[in-house]
């Protein structure tokens, strides 16, 4: 399902007007990519999107990842832009799907007939950095959202600001506080 916000991000922003030449810079990639092939886009961005969904504590991140890319495949013929725009658009879709999923679960919580366990289940075996994931879970929702979009999804400050609907200054502040808290939690150097 394409939300209004997704369509706005796709059609009303600079993605439609951006030139189709690859940009040079931090987000530029060297390997060729056929942006009209949803399979190639999946192979390029699915690991980052899955990392984003896991870091945001999506209950079923792999299922959500599939939903994200099904929507991407449907809307990809209407996309115009370079790699950076494509990455930004895909993460916008993922962001909205994540919010939709959380709302859906809040309205229709999953009921289980089983009793809750006494102790928390250990992290899944395929989680790359359990310590970091646990530290991310201690951040506020706003801090985690910003820091994950910024570094896991590898988006620029302006892109994170656009996706989350904040000003760039607010994103910078949230990022600084999140990194400081992660540094304290993980024991590494931290600072603004």
């Amino acid at each position, binding site marked *: 399902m394409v939300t209004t916000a997704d369509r706005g991000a796709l059609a009303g922003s600079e993605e439609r007007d951006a030139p189709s030449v690859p940009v040079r810079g931090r987000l530029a990639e060297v390997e060729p990519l056929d942006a009209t092939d949803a399979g190639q886009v999946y192979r390029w961005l699915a690991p*980052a999107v899955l*990392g984003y969904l896991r870091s945001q504590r999506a209950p079923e991140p792999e299922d959500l990842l599939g939903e994200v890319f099904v929507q991407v*495949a449907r809307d990809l013929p209407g996309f115009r832009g370079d790699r950076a725009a494509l990455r930004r658009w895909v993460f916008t879709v993922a962001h909205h799907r994540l919010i939709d999923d959380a709302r859906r679960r809040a309205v229709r919580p999953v009921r289980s007939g089983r009793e809750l366990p006494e102790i928390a289940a250990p992290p899944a075996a395929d989680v790359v950095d359990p310590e970091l994931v646990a530290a991310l879970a201690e951040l506020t929702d706003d801090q985690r959202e910003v820091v994950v979009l910024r570094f896991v999804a590898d988006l620029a400050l302006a892109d994170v600001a656009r996706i989350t609907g904040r000003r760039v200054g607010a994103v910078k502040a949230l990022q600084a506080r999140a990194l400081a808290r992660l540094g304290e939690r993980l024991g*590494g150097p931290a600072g603004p």
Partner: protein
Amino acid sequence: MNENEHLTDRLAELGRHPIPPAVAAQHLAGIDAAGVPASGARGRRLSAVAVAAAAVAVLGVTGVAAAALGSGGSRPTTVMAEEGEGVEGTQAEATEPVETPPVETPPVETPDPAVEELSGTEGGAVGDVVAEAARIAREVRRAAGCVGPPPWAGTPPAGATEEQRAASRAAEAQAFAALRAACPDDGDQGEASTGRPPGVPPAQAGPPARIADDPCVGPPPWAGIPPAGATEEERAASRAAEAQRHEADRAACPDGDDS
């Protein structure tokens, strides 16, 4: 160097974890099902056209081959349909709205024994092509009005009075009869089924005549009726007399149609 670089590196590593192959395969299958590139639809249309062209070519070759190999008086129906009198030209003069069907259509949909044998025994690619061609031919016939209900079915006739409505519907029926007469499977080899006198162009024949009213076509009038008579001899004599009368009637028919 950023003092948080070790943190950002660890965070970035979360986004580089590969997708499990089984999960990726499932997602890619979903993507294939959801995203149809524009070239895909165009490709399907082109392939349908290619199948139709190949089918016409195959049917043409088999029709000619069957004509060449035909034994006795059993000519391939495709050839008969192509040679039928008055199929082209005369109908357009009689009723303007009638469009003459494409010339390639009759061989496609006329049941050709050679084609049926080909599609039934060989199967595979050629059989598929023949089946696809038959399907396309059916669609063409349906689009041309050769099958299905008449276009006015379910709609009231136009006109304010009863006479006007009757006249309107009669005109529609006449035009539709001419259209159906031009259809390939209503070819001139099947005049007995339509009641059209031989040699008369389809558009001039009008609606099919009743077989019971025309001794020149159809089964003999006693068909399905037991002969009169109390004894076997009487019944045989009665039936012989009827046959003799029918033979005389048939002899008076315009071209001796004995169907």
